[in-house]
């Protein structure tokens, strides 16, 4: 079990702090690491895709869980998998797709672990149909601060604190997850353009229920009448008969092939993503999308994980890194969403990865992010002048509308706003105080926001 003091950051590459990085290879080693993590505690880390400081622990231990990466059992008839927390969704797809199964929920990257997916209670393009990841978890094993390994099942307080609990209730060791049956590894995708924000919201509200997966890329640099123009891509797993006969895809419908370009180099300078370059990109992206196209067959990576094709794409933002801002406001608060989109557009934030989605029902996790309503996610270079104050203003707008920001992406929220955004925060704190009185499980996020 190697331990090394190294600087650690999230995917946004801001606020590095140093921690002892420990990579347990067995449950026993994980238990030892938790027992010996010292006064500054420890936190589990998966593949480091949380944007902010959720998987950092300054001066303490960070448990790199990717060493626990075994898939233990697959029920190919019932559609469940039992695997270690360090198994990535990429690996699960490789293993499961040939058997006709798919992960129940995938975010915009396959390179997250099952443990991280539960800890952040991630959502995907199918949230309006399927809910968050933890809704599909049948049980999990949790290593708690006292050294015990507990079997945790849905419906219990410990499960609801752990789902979305950012790793602060313990270290997830294994999970049993219910799967989604598929006939092919291709997606049947409908694409359409929306002229402005109202058009976009109308289209999403009217026809989202027809699709299992739905998301809209939104051009936040468009101004005036085009404010909020967007490209909607919605679809479902293609049925076998949608594949043209005689093609390779038809002969081998469940093959899962991925390809990756060379990694982004580490020396990219600041300022590549400026208003000009992002504005140009957005214009092209909008123009090249068809006005309306139905039934296009796409591969899973192209539909769900386009950025995974470029390893280390986060380096494009340069050494200063970037901030991801994702919030949700409930149905009926479309006014707040419109105001925020207008402010971002007027502010000319160079954001080329902005997406808007309608969430379905809220999830049971106490700190789970989704609530029924509208969620907008955008990336912004951290070096943009005045960004800190601007995002604080957006927070006020979001909190005022009864909304919240997503902890897995946060790196800068004012702690005072947290309780208003997450009404079950007091329950979460109380459970932690009882389960882990010495705060063994601690992260930079939990220190910053007093979780």
């Amino acid at each position, binding site marked *: 079990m190697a331990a090394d*003091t*190294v*600087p650690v950051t999230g995917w*946004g590459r*801001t*606020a*590095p*702090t*140093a*921690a002892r990085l420990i990579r347990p290879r067995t449950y026993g080693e994980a238990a030892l690491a938790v027992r010996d993590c010292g006064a*500054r505690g420890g936190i589990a880390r998966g593949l480091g895709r949380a944007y*902010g*400081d959720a998987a950092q*622990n*300054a*001066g*303490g231990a960070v448990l790199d869980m990717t060493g626990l990466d075994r898939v233990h059992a697959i029920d190919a008839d019932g559609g469940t998998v039992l695997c270690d927390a360090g198994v990535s969704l990429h690996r699960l797809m490789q293993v499961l797709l040939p058997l006709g199964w798919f992960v129940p929920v995938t975010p915009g990257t396959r390179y997250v672990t099952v443990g991280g997916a539960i800890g952040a209670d991630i959502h995907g393009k199918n949230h309006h149909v399927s809910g968050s990841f933890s809704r599909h978890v049948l049980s999990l094993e949790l290593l708690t601060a006292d050294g015990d390994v507990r079997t945790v099942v849905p419906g219990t307080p410990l499960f609801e604190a752990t789902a979305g609990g950012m790793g602060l209730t313990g270290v997830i060791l294994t999970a049993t997850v219910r799967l989604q049956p598929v006939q092919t590894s291709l997606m049947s995708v409908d694409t359409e353009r929306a002229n402005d924000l109202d058009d976009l919201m109308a289209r999403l509200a009217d026809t989202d229920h027809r699709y299992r997966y739905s998301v809209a890329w939104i051009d936040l640099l468009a101004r005036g009448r085009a404010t909020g123009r967007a490209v909607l891509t919605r679809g479902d797993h293609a049925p076998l008969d949608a594949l043209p006969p005689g093609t390779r895809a038809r002969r081998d419908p469940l093959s899962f092939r991925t390809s990756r370009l060379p990694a982004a180099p580490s020396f990219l300078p600041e300022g590549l993503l400026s208003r000009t370059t992002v504005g140009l990109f957005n214009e092209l992206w909008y123009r090249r999308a068809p006005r309306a196209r139905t039934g296009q067959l796409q591969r899973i990576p192209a539909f769900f994980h386009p950025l995974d094709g470029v390893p280390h794409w986060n380096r494009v933002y340069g050494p*200063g*890194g970037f*901030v991801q801002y994702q919030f949700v406001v409930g149905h009926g608060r479309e006014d707040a969403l419109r105001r925020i989109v207008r402010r971002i557009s007027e502010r000319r934030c160079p954001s080329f990865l902005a997406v808007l989605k309608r969430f379905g029902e809220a999830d049971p996790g106490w700190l789970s992010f989704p609530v029924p309503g509208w969620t907008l996610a955008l990336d912004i270079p*951290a*070096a943009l002048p005045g*960004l*800190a*104050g601007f995002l604080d203003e957006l927070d006020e707008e979001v909190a005022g509308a009864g909304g919240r920001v997503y902890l897995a992406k946060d*790196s*800068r929220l*004012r*702690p005072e706003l947290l309780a208003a955004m997450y009404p079950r925060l007091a329950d979460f704190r109380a459970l932690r105080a009882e389960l882990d009185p010495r705060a063994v499980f601690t992260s*930079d996020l939990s*220190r*910053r926001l007093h979780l």
Partner: protein
Amino acid sequence: MKDAFGLPQSLLVLGGTSEIALATARRLIARRTRTVWLAGRPSPGLDEAAGQLRGLGADVRTVAFDALDPAAHEDALGKVFAEGDIDMVLLAFGTLGDQAHDERDPNAAVRVAQTNYTGAVSAGLVCAGALQTQGHGSLVVLSSVAGERARRANFIYGSSKAGLDAFAQGLGDALHGTGVHVMVVRPGFVRTRMTAGLPEAPLATTPEAVAAAVELGLRRRAETVWVPGALRMVMSALRHLPRGVFRRLPV
């Protein structure tokens, strides 16, 4: 913890009555800072400064600290770190001395050097150790352009700042990769009590401008910050002037 923009939630000021430090504290309290420690010699001025910052909504405490008593630094500052993480230490104490007088009074000159240099070496090392243990934090050191090249008019002060500056640079390199960030701030002539009555140098600036530059430097995780920024070029030129020419400059 510092956030993505390098903004600290807790601040320890060494030299708690420094106008630059207080301008910086005011600016940071308006952002994220909620806990402030003001370290300095107990005085009505220190309490008044604490009161002012409390008025801005921060939880402010004072701690007795004397740059000239390095033996006590470990205890005094250790107490502060024992109360909780410090996200940013602002090393702001210093004295200008009186060049003409101090040239005739070596003991007074040594006090300038002890305050600005050896006091900072001791306090800087104590804080660096504590920051390294917590695995994060910024140590912001107020140096001066006067340390960049010694001038006839204030070489006692200038030499002490030169020592401090070199110390802080080396410390920053030593702490690279430990999660601790050291930032050297080199202001030019700043209009404060310390410089009141002195003839103003070109590119003179204000404590508020230094505070703004510190905030920007934190966001960029800068290692060196000049205030105003133009001084970087000016001093780069002055540094290379031949001695004979430099001596004759009216600065």
